[in-house]
């Protein structure tokens, strides 16, 4: 395997890992809460959900492992923040836009077929 293709393979694996990490409703909810840009504590992220603090901590670790979330110590608690760097990748950007198109085409299909 050439150096180029092995680094490509590594990239593809990283993208797959990010999508796998996001492919869970609880983790997606956490990401959605962090999208505003403001760092949140675990208590804030647990508030208003039926999920335990422990479960939130576990899910945040999964997101941290793939680099989507970053944490920093603030006194006694950790603050979590979204890291959008991974999404600056062109491939991920295209995947996101492609998903948007899939949605739009489904809407068009439903519209034309039921009209």
């Amino acid at each position, binding site marked *: 395997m050439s150096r180029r293709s092995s680094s490509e393979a590594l990239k593809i694996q990283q993208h797959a890992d990010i999508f796998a990490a996001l492919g869970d*409703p609880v983790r997606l*909810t956490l990401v959605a809460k962090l999208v505003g840009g403001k760092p949140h504590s675990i208590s804030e992220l647990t508030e208003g959900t039926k999920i335990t603090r422990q479960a939130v901590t576990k899910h945040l670790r999964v997101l941290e492992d793939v680099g989507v979330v970053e944490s920093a110590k603030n006194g006694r608690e950790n603050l979590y923040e979204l890291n959008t760097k991974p999404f600056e990748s062109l491939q991920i950007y295209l995947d*996101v836009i*492609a998903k948007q198109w899939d949605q739009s*085409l*489904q*809407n068009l299909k439903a519209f034309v077929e039921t009209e």
Partner: protein
Amino acid sequence: MANNENSIARQIEIKAPVSKVWQALTNAKLFEQWFGIKFNGPFVAGKSTIGRNTYPAFDKFDTEFMIKEIRPETYFSYAWHPYAFDENFDYSKEEPTLVEFFLESSTTGTLLKVTETGFNKVTASRRAEAFKMHSGGWEEQLKNIEAFLVEKK
């Protein structure tokens, strides 16, 4: 269909005649209904029309559709700036992407293909922003899921 380095290609089978799909794509009034947008004029080749997003979170944002080519019942294309939702950014300086629709009649009705090309010109920070915008859309859907899960308990 796979996405290559700087383009997106998607296709869908629609159980309706080509003429009907064509209308839904090129009649701005019909396009509005499935796309979630409101235009200030019809689609005319070589002219621009401004569309205002109708999704609540983005209803302050306008998107310019630069209509390129309209070939009856076979091909329709426009250029735009995808996810141009930052009020402080001058998108006119950016290279737009090109959206092309290809229509073909099939055994079940219509095969519609869409391609979007020219993404290599979009800057890295804009890409990250697109992800955030998409997450905004998720947020709404996730609220529904959450409500559903809470009710079930």
